[in-house]
Every structure is written in C-alpha cells, then in structure tokens.
C-alpha cells in the first residue's frame, strides 16, 4: 500500500485530522496527518517505496515499523538511514509505528531497535542510493563508478558541472523496486551497507527531533486525541481480586449529567459519559454488588517471600551444572549463603493507561501509545472478530513504555466499547487503577551459595531462583488482556512464566544455576499479574548474583573490583561477541572513571566517628544481549534516619557502535535512575484481597530530592578490533537498569557494614537493619 501515502494528497475523500501528528518526525512528513477511511492492508516490506519516499525537493521520509518510547530511536534511525542514502540528516524525517503506513517491525521491545531493526533500515537506504545512482548513470551515460554523490546530489566525477539531485532523479515517482528477504528483519536489496568508517551522521549527536514539540506544548499525544462525537469511558474494577459481579444498579448513575451508558459483560464494567469529568464521577458513583471469592487470591505482600519459598513450583528449569558443585562445596574452606528478595514492582506509567478508538466507516482505528502497535492491531482484530484489514493502530507518543504496560489493556477496552456503542470512545484508567492493575515485574526469591578455598578463590557457586511469574502476560493477547479475563473469555492454560539466571562471564569451576516459577493462588482476574518490565527479570536476578559476588569478596577479604577481574581473567577463551574481554574493559573503565581505591569492603570507620552520614561505594556488572555494563554507586547513608542517597554514579557502557552518544548517555542515565527508584522505593503492596499501594504516596518513586550530584557515563568500545568496519550496533535500552540495584546494595554495605538483601531499601527498613547491627 505504498501508493496511499504518496497519492492521498490528491485523493478526494481523505479526512485531515489533527490527531496523528505525533507519528510525524519532522518537517517533511505531512503524510501522516492524513487519515484514510480504510480498509488498511499491510504495507509490503519487500517494496522499497514502503520504507523511503523521496520528494521532488530532495527531502526524504523514512517509514519504519518501530516506536520511540523516549530514547531517541527515531533520531538514530534518521542518522543511520541518511548516512546510507547519502542525504543530509536535516533533509530527512521519520514516520513510526502506525500500522497502515509503516511496515511491521514489531514496534518496540527487547532493546532491538538499533541492534536488529537498524540493519534492514540501513540496507534499504543503501538500496535506495544504489537505485538513484543507476538512474543518474543512465541519465548521464556514464558508469556508476564514475559518479560521486553527496547530500543527495549526484555529480559526474570527470565533469562536475554535470549534476542532478535525488529529487530530480525520482521526479515525483515511486521507486517500484522489489526487495528480498524471508522476513522483515532480513529485508535487503542488492546494495551493501557502508563500512563504519564511511558513516558521517552516525557517531554524532544531532538533537532529538521530537523534543521541541514536547517542551512548547505543541505535540499531540495519544491522550490528546479528540474526535467528533467522541465520548469518555472509565472502568469500574472489582473491589477485590477474583470478585464476581452480582448486579449493577444503573439507576445510581442514570440521571447524572452527560451519562451515556454502562457497558458490562462478565465481570467487566465501564461507564461512558459525554465529558471526561462526568465519566470519572459516574464510575465512582455506580453502585455494583460484588461477591468476594471464597479463597484469598494471594498472600499479603508482607508474607510473599515465605509463601514463595514454601510453594511447589509450577515449573523448574533443568539446572545448568558445571563441574561438581556439591563436592567442591563439601571441601570448601569457607561457605557463604544468602537469600535475596525482590518484590513485585510495577510499570506505574506516568499517565494511566489510555487509548481512543474510532469505529467510523465500519473500520476500527485505535490511537494508542502502545509500544507494540502491530500486535495491538492483530490482537484487537481477533478480539472483535474483525478482518485485520479493517483495523489499524495509529501510534502516538505516550508516557514511558518499558514493556508490557496496561496500554495494551486500554486499547482493547476502547475498541470494544467503541464497537459496542458505535461512537469514538476515549478510555483512560485512573491513577489507583494503574498502580493496582498494571502488569508487574515478577517478585523473586533467590538463594545463593558459594564456596571459597583457603586462598580465597571462588571454587563453587550456586544460584537458585524462584520467580512469582506463573501466567506471565504476553503483549496484546486477545485471550489474556484484562478485559478478556474479566469477560471470562480467557484461554485455558496460563503461560508458564520464567525465572532468569544471572548474566555474567565469570569463570567458576563448579557452578549450578537453577530457576523455578511459582504461582500465586489466583492466576486470572488479578491485579497482581506479571508481564515484561524493562529488562524483564534482569534487575532481580542481578541484584542477587552481584550482591553475592560482593559478599564472597568480603569473605575472601578481597577488593570487589579485583575479585571480579580475577573471575573474568580465569579463562582466556571468549564468546563470539567478545563479552568476556568487553566485561573486563567495562569494569576497568568504570573503576578508573570513579577513581576506585582498591580495598576490601566494608570501608573502615575511623575510631570515634560519630557522624550521622556514612559513605561507601559499590560496583556491579552484567550484560544484556551483547551490551556490557559496569556501574558504580556512591552512597550516603544517614544512620539516624535510614535514608540512602546515591550521590554519585559511574557507568561504563559498551554497546558496540554508538549512533548518538548524547541520546545514549541520557538513556543510560534514565535506566540507572529507574533502577535506583526500584532499589530505594518501589514495591507493590497488597493485603489478601487487593493492592494497597495505589498512588504516589503509597507507591513512592524516585524524586528530584534523590538525584545524584554527579553522573559519569563512559562509552566503552572493548571490542578486540575496535576500528573494524563491521563493528555492530547493539541495544542500549535496558542494560543500564540491570546491575544498579546490586551496586546500591553493595555501596550501602561498604558504607555501613550492613548487607541489605530485601528490596526496596526504604528508610525504615535500612534504619531497622542498622539498629539491629548496632551501627
């Protein structure tokens, strides 16, 4: 359907609305402002025109199937593609994520935007350049190798007066060039991508194009959609998990101003009114008779870890065993054991889940910030029993989308309600609903055991994790979104879930890693439901593993950096991504940038030191995919109040070829601070029937007052051949989250001598631990 984008300005019947502007990434992409009446067939990824449009004025628009959750990926795509196309960055724009005008690259997820999707983008842009050079070759009657190209102008090398622009070459027409590839990630033309050394925009830091409209108030977000005849909906959720709807007294709201309808099916209820504040008031006022379940849906959060350790796992991963850990532990000079607990932690998006759905023309358009717009389209088509071609998702910007958020659920709800009442419906959750019912990162209970020989060498290591992840939700699944669960149309078998094992390159001769999943009593229709949260399971497993490495270093009376380097240099072989060599480089770079003083932890306290503030530093390291990160946190712990302040941060980060260093730095900073928020504050709390952490007071988050004084990000290139022309670009969206909880715990121990093994480290918990230890 490449014709639609390019022809629709001349086509009658297209409705121009103001709502899709957020998908537009620059001044040269007016196309996305135009809304078609449907149907909406898939753009063909094997057609060059689906990816790149070049206008007569030699501006180019790139159409990509990704969504930018605030990390600047759109800017990075423009940098990579403009380099391959040989066009000035400023003359390009990027359109992202709307299912009818961009190819299906899956939206966002897995930090794969640059690492995976960047490659087909580079290849198609290189192919467009090749095709344009062929056109110029025919025009001038000289071979391609006699042509030079710069900033979208092709010149005959022997006669520079002979020149022509890309816009003149394409002449307002389409490329009509077929691409190949078995799947969208493999999409390619004939042309090869450039070696790293020939990239010009890559490695620079053009400012993110999306920021100006975010600071002057002009950006239209998914929450801003207004359509003719649109009404507002709010959900009425069960007051207790697993409650059954007995009856609704509609007369309790029927006479309210603006009342439109109560829509209900199974245990799902929504109230619809003409105005937003009316819908909020009516949803609060609606009288509903619920029957509470006979059995408690879950233990109270304070009893969670006891429950998890006592539960029979729903599944257990086959343990990964190296050497003979049992024998090695039996012969160890020192054995160290520790349990680590991480509670459920939520997305708690800054705007509660929302979407607007328009059922006009017998089609269904959903305006959503969901990071996987393509999956949402498919899921909603199935859910509503509509042909895919009649459903599209227009992706617009929204609050931070770091995984499977409740944006999925709100999209389905808006579409269902719009179909039910035949009018455009704007759905938004309330804050208490978001905090309680959004998807959570699973709680982890981890047991670690390690053995040192008499010289302090680590000879055996065991990791045994339990994750409360049974029924883990996928993205936009028509049988697991909340509305489907509440309506009783859920599928029969819940997802198995998973429990992660640590990601490190330590060489330990005897090692066992085991992981189990346990289930809460209630699996469906529960607010304590799990889904992917930024680096799913990484912060939890790494908190245990990297805290424990520190505990082993303490037992060995070794400096924690030296102890880790010893484990990394215990072998000379490496994997295909040189992760071991790059791990060593990252840890060394972090230690150097921080000015690490080599000594065992905890930090010795001067005799007679009676000050309130204790200071210490901790390091932790991990990798995600091919991206390696080492992080150092310096903390101040107030022993009178228990407050922890992470005063200074250092991150050494190796994600291969860096596209936009400044945008990358900010992404890394945000990832680290997100994990500090999880380390210090975040916990989903519940009694035995409902979530009780329902706003920003009961579910606190990091604030300005907690901001580090200094953050240093060191971009490392630890590749053994750092200048190689094919240096890959790896993902960077999540790795920086991974080791930070452990780094903070290690720093608190260094400062106080007290080891915290239960997240979060809120002041009351820290104070109690300090008092118990006599600090």
């Amino acid at each position, binding site marked *: 359907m490449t014709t639609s984008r390019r022809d629709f300005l001349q086509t009658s019947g297209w409705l121009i609305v103001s709502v899709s502007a957020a998908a537009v990434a620059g001044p040269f992409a007016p196309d996305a402002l135009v809304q078609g009446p449907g149907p909406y067939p898939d753009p063909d990824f094997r057609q060059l025109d689906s990816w790149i449009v070049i206008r007569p004025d030699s501006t180019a628009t790139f159409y990509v199937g990704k969504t930018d959750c605030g990390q600047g990926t759109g800017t990075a795509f423009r940098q990579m593609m403009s380099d391959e196309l040989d066009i000035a960055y400023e003359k390009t724009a990027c359109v992202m994520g709307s299912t009818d005008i961009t190819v299906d690259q899956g939206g966002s997820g897995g930090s794969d935007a640059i690492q995976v999707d960047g490659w087909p983008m580079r290849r198609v842009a290189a192919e467009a350049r090749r095709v344009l050079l062929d056109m110029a070759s025919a025009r001038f009657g000289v071979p391609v190798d006699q042509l030079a190209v710069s900033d979208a102008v092709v010149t005959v090398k022997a006669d520079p007066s002979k020149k022509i622009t890309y816009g003149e070459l394409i002449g307002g027409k389409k490329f009509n060039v077929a691409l190949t590839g078995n799947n969208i990630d493999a999409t390619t033309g004939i042309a090869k991508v450039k070696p790293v050394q020939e990239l010009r925009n890559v490695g620079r830091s053009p400012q993110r194009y999306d920021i100006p409209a975010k600071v002057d108030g002009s950006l239209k977000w998914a929450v801003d959609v207004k359509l003719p005849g649109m009404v507002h909906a709010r959900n009425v959720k069960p007051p207790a998990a697993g409650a059954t709807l007995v009856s609704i007294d509609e007369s309790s709201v029927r006479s309210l101003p603006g009342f439109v309808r109560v829509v209900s099916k199974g245990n799902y209820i929504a109230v619809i009114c003409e105005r937003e504040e009316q819908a909020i008031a009516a949803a609060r006022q609606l009288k509903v008779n619920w029957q509470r379940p006979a059995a408690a849906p879950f233990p109270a959060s304070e009893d969670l870890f006891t429950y998890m350790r006592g539960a029979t796992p729903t599944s257990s991963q086959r343990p990964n065993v190296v050497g003979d850990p049992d024998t090695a532990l039996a012969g160890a000079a020192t054995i160290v054991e520790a349990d680590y607990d991480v509670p459920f932690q939520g997305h708690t998006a800054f705007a509660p889940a929302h979407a607007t759905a328009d059922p006009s023309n017998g089609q269904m358009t959903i305006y959503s910030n969901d990071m996987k717009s393509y999956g949402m389209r498919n899921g909603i088509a199935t859910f509503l029993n509509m042909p895919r071609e009649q459903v599209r998702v227009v992706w617009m910007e929204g609050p*931070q989308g770091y995984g499977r958020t409740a944006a999925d659920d709100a999209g389905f709800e808006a579409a269902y309600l719009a179909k039910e009442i035949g009018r455009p419906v704007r759905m938004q959750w309330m804050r208490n609903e978001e905090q309680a019912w959004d998807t959570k990162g699973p709680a982890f209970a981890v047991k670690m055991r390690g053995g040192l020989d008499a010289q302090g060498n680590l000879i055996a290591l065991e990791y045994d994790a339990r994750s409360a992840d049974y029924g883990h939700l996928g993205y936009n699944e028509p049988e697991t979104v909340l509305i489907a669960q509440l309506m009783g149309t859920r599928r029969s078998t819940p997802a198995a879930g998973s429990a992660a094992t640590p990601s490190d390159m330590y060489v330990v001769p005897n090692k066992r890693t085991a992981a189990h999943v346990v289930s809460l009593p209630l699996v469906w229709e529960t607010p304590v439901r799990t889904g992917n949260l930024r680096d799913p399971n990484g912060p939890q497993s790494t908190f245990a593993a990297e805290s424990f490495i520190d505990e082993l270093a303490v037992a060995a009376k070794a400096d924690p950096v030296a102890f880790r380097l010893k484990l990394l240099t215990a072998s000379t072989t490496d994997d295909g991504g040189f992760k071991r060599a790059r791990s060593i480089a990252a840890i060394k770079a972090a230690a150097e940038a921080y000015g690490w003083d080599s000594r065992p932890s905890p930090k010795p306290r001067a005799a007679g030191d009676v000050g309130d503030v204790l200071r210490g530093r901790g390091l932790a390291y991990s990798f995600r995919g091919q991206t390696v990160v080492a992080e150092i946190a310096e903390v101040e712990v107030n022993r009178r109040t228990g407050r922890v302040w992470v005063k200074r941060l250092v991150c050494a980060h190796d994600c291969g070829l860096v596209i936009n260093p400044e945008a990358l730095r900010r992404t890394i900073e945000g990832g680290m601070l997100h994990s500090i928020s999880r380390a210090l504050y975040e916990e989903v709390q519940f009694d035995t029937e409902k979530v009780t952490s329902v706003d*920003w007071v009961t579910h606190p988050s*990091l604030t300005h007052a907690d901001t580090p004084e200094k953050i240093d990000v060191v971009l490392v290139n630890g590749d053994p051949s750092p200048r190689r022309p094919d240096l890959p670009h790896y993902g960077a969206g999540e790795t920086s989250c991974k080791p930070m909880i452990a780094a903070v715990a290690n720093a608190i121990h260094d400062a106080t001598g007290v080891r915290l093994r239960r997240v979060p480290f809120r002041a009351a918990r820290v104070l109690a631990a300090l008092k118990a230890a006599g600090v």
Partner: protein
Amino acid sequence: MSNITLRVNGRAHTVDVEPSTPLLYVLRNDLGLQGPRFGCGLGQCGACAVIINGVAARSCVTPVSSVRTEVTTLEGLATGGRLHPLQQAWIDEQVPACGFCQNGQIMTAKAMLDKNPHPTDAQIREGMARTLCRCMTYYRVQAAIKRVAGGVA
C-alpha cells in the same frame, strides 16, 4: 452546569461546565490547551501544572470555579515566537525522555525561578521534589534549570 469565564494565556474564555469541574479538563477538553496533562488526579505528580498567581498549581485538583486570576499554561510561555528561556534550556540540555511529565517540570521550574531566580542546588531539589518523572530525567532537568538560573540562557 453554569457559565464560567476564565482568562488563560492572555485570552478570555467562557465555558459551560459544572463549577466543581477540575480546571485540567476545561483546559484540555474545552479550550484545547493540552500542555497540562492528567497524571494522577490527586495533585501528587505535577503533570497537570499551570501557573496561577505565580504558583505552579495542580489543575487536576483545582475546581474551575475557584480560579479568579490569569492562568498560564505551557502553551503560553513563549512570547513573540520566542521560547521561554527554560524551554530553550530544555532543548539545549536535551532533557525529555518520553516527555510526558515535562509540562510539570517546566511550569514548576518557572514558578520557582520567578520567585527565586538563583536557587541553590538544595533549593532546586526541594522546589522540584513533588514534580515526578518516571523516565527519571531529574539530573537533566536540574542541569537545565541551572543553565537558566546561572544566566546562560
């Protein structure tokens, strides 16, 4: 419903709404000023901040009928086609990640600097402490405020 007249960004508007309606919904849904956004509806996060009487007010918990004086929204900060120095600093410092909270960050910072043009680091932390960001752009927000407070803008 009753007619209520508001002065927003230098213009007068009359709307017909329930007097108890939070100002936020009137700005967004009746006046088309969508810089302020719904974050919590509880006055806890700052996404809805607008400036009234020099204070960064939480419009989600401000009844429209209680507003007696001029309201300034994010859209009203620029003058004569020039961004407010804070907005420019936000671009120069490349502050936003997703950007959803940045209305609150900018409006709260403006009210703070209007009262105290040269705050200390501690005053910035304290003055901004109730304005949340879930992408955790605090470090850059504070850097941008310091750019303006230091006179760089």
